[in-house]
C-alpha cells in the first residue's frame, strides 16, 4: 500500500469539499427523545442550524437544554436506547446522514465531521500511547502502516503545539496534563482533515490560562484549515471571544440566533437577556446581580406555550396578551425579528425596544 501524507486511498466515497454548494452541515428540524422508564424526555424539539466553511457557530445553553444532544445525533453517538431520533434531518454537503447506510456514515464521521469532548481523560484510552491513538485514525480510515501512522501522529502533535512531540508520542494519556490531553484530542479530531469540528465544552474542565491557550489553538487551526466549527458551551465569554454566530438553546429549542455581536449587545429573547444580566463582570464590581428566577425546566414536562414563560418577567397570558401571542398557550415560533436575527418570543420587539 503506498500512502503519502494527505492522499486518500481505499475510500469508496472520498470526502472532498465542493465549495459553492451551500452550507457544509445542515441540521433541519431535528427531534430527539429519551424514552426512559420514568417517561419520555424531549431533549431536542425541532432545532435547525447550518454551518458554513470556516465559520464558527456557538450553541449556547445551560445543562439540560439539549445543546449536546444534537451534536451527539450528528456524530451517531447517542445512547440508543433510550435516545431516539424522532424526526428531522442532518445533511452533510447536501446528503442526509440519517437515511444513509452505516458504512457511508462511517466515511463521513472522521474525514468529514469529527468531535472533541469536555473530558479528555475519559475520551482517551488509558492503555494505549497517545501516538498510537492518534495514528489509529490513519490506520482505520486510510490503512496507513504503523510506522507512517506514527509519523503522522508526531506531525499532528506538533501542529497542536505539544512541546517535544517526537519524544512524547509514546507517552500514555495519564502522563499529560489536562490542557495537553485536550490537545491530543484535538490532534485526533484533526487527523483526517475534517470539514466540520464539533467541540463539546472543550475547555470547561480546564483552567482559564490553559483555556485561553486551547481556544487560541482552535482559532488558529480553523483559520489554517477552513473547517467549520460548532462550539457547544455554557460560557458566554468563550462564545463572545471565539464564535461568529450563536444559537441560544433553552428546553430543547433554539430561542435565539444571530451574530454574536448582535445577540450579545441587544438580546431579542428574555432568556438571553436574563443570562447576560446574571453574570458578574470582571471589569467592574457592579451592584446586585439580576438572576433569572426559578429553576431550569423539566424536559419530561416542558411548560406549555413558551417553555420559558414560568421564569420570564415579560410573560403575559389571558387578557393581557395580544391575540395569538399568549405566552402560556401559544408556542412562539423562531421567527425573523430584525434582518439576520431570529428569536422565539412573542414579544421580541419589546425586548429589543424597536
Amino acid at each position: 500500500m503506498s500512502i503519502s501524507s494527505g492522499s486518500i486511498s481505499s475510500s469508496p466515497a472520498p470526502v472532498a469539499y465542493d465549495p459553492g454548494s451551500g452550507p457544509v452541515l445542515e441540521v433541519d428540524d431535528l427531534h430527539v427523545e429519551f424514552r426512559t422508564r420514568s417517561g419520555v424526555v424531549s431533549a431536542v424539539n425541532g432545532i435547525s442550524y447550518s454551518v458554513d466553511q470556516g465559520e464558527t457557530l456557538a450553541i449556547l445553553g445551560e445543562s439540560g437544554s439539549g445543546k449536546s444532544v444534537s451534536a451527539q445525533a450528528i456524530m451517531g453517538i447517542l445512547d440508543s436506547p433510550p435516545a431516539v431520533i424522532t424526526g428531522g434531518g442532518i445533511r452533510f454537503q447536501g446528503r442526509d446522514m440519517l437515511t444513509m447506510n452505516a458504512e457511508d456514515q462511517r466515511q463521513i464521521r472522521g474525514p468529514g465531521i469529527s468531535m472533541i469532548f469536555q473530558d479528555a481523560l475519559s475520551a482517551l484510552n488509558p492503555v494505549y500511547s497517545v501516538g498510537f491513538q492518534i495514528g489509529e485514525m490513519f490506520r482505520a480510515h486510510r490503512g496507513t502502516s504503523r510506522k507512517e501512522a506514527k509519523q503522522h501522529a508526531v506531525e499532528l502533535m506538533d501542529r497542536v503545539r505539544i512541546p517535544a512531540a517526537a519524544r512524547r508520542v509514546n507517552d500514555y494519556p495519564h502522563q499529560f496534563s489536562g490542557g495537553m490531553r485536550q490537545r491530543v484530542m484535538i490532534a485526533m479530531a484533526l487527523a483526517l482533515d475534517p470539514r466540520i469540528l464539533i467541540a463539546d465544552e472543550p475547555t470547561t474542565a480546564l483552567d482559564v490560562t490553559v483555556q485561553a491557550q486551547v481556544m487560541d489553538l482552535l482559532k488558529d487551526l480553523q483559520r489554517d484549515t477552513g473547517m467549520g466549527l460548532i462550539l457547544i458551551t455554557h460560557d458566554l465569554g468563550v462564545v463572545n471571544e471565539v464564535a461568529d454566530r450563536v444559537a441560544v438553546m433553552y428546553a430543547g429549542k433554539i430561542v435565539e440566533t444571530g451574530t454574536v455581536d448582535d445577540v450579545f449587545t441587544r438580546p431579542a429573547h428574555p432568556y438571553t437577556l436574563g443570562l447576560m444580566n446574571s453574570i458578574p463582570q470582571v471589569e467592574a464590581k457592579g451592584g446586585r446581580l439580576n438572576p433569572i428566577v426559578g429553576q431550569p425546566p423539566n424536559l419530561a414536562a416542558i411548560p406549555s406555550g413558551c417553555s420559558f414563560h414560568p421564569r420570564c418577567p415579560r410573560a403575559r397570558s389571558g387578557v393581557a396578551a395580544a391575540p395569538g401571542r399568549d405566552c402560556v398557550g401559544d408556542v412562539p415560533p423562531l421567527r425573523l425579528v430584525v434582518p439576520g436575527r431570529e428569536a422565539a418570543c412573542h414579544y421580541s420587539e419589546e425586548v429589543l425596544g424597536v
Partner: protein
Amino acid sequence: MSDPADIAAASVLPEPSAGEPLLEIRGLKKYFPLTQGIVFRKTIGHVHAVDGVDLTLNRGETVGMVGESGCGKSTVAKLLVALEKPTGGTILYKGQDVAKMGGRALKQYRREVQIIFQDPYGSLNPRMTVGDIVAEGWSVHADVAPRKGRLQRTQELLDRVGLNPDYVNRYPHQFSGGQRQRIGIARALALRPEIIVCDEPVSALDVSVQAQVVNLLEDLQDELGMSYLFIAHDLSVVRHLSDRIAVMYLGSVVEEGTEEQVYGSPSHPYTQALLSSVPLHEPALRGQKDRILLQGDVPSPADPPSGCRFRTRCWKAQDICATEPPALIDRGQGHPAACHFAEAREVVPVDVD
C-alpha cells in the same frame, strides 16, 4: 444570646476586642506525603499543597481567594475547617491557636466555622432527608437549638435560603443543583457560624442559577453579619463578592489587595495573565484587553521550582527569580505582590459606559 448554654459556650472562645481580626493565618503550610509500597509504606516525597500562606479575615468581611486547580486553595479551606492538620504555621481564631485547641474549644470552633462545598451532588448524603441534613448539626451541637421546635427551625432555615419549607422530607436527588447548594447553605447556617468557608460554591451551577446563589450569599451576609472566605476560580464572581482578594499560585499567595487594587492594577505577572485569560462576554470589549498567553502548564506541586514559583512560565523571569523567592510585599503599587519585578498594569479594559 439569652440562652444560658450559649453564654457558657461563648466563654470557651472569648470575643475578640474591636479591630482585632477574627481569623489570622500565619505561614500556613500543608505537605502531603507521597508514598510507595502497599504494606510497608515509605515516603518518597511531599506534595507542597500549601506552602506559606498568610491571610487575615475580619468580622463581616469577604475575602476572595482565586487560583487555578492545584494551587492549594481547597486545601486552605480544609485546613480552616480543621479537616486537615497543618504541617506548619498557625491559624489564630479569636486570638487562639486552632492547633492547640482541645475538646470544648475545638468543638466550639467547628460550630463557628462552617463550610460550603463545590459539588452539589456529592456534598449531601443521598440517604438522608433534607430536614435531617440541615438539622444534623444540632445533634452534634445540642446547645444551639433545643430538641423541641427543631423541625420548625429547619423549615425556617429552608425558607430563608429560598426553598419550600414543606420539602423537609424530600431527598437531595429530588432537587436541582442550585437547590441542593441552597440546602448546603442552610446546613451551614444552622449552626449560626461566624465564618463560612465557601469552597467554589457556584462553580458547578448554571449561569442563571449561579447569580441566585451569589445574591443569596450576599443577602445572608448583610443580615447575619458573618465573614466569608470565598474560594473560586471564577474571577468575575470573586470580584463581585469580595472586599479583599488573594491570588494563589502553586501553594502560596502571589498578590493581595482590595478588589479594586487586584483587578484594576494587577502587579504580579501571574495575576495579569489570569485576568487577561478570562473571556469577556461583551462584544464591545472584545480584543481590547491585553492578551497574555502563558506558556505551558502549572508545575507539579510535588517538585515546585526553586525561588519564585511562577518563574517557569513568566516572561519577566531573570536569574534572581531562580534563587530568591520573592516576598509578598508592597513594591510601590499600593498593595503587596510576590514578584521581584512587580509592576502595575491595566489588563482588563475599564467598562465602556
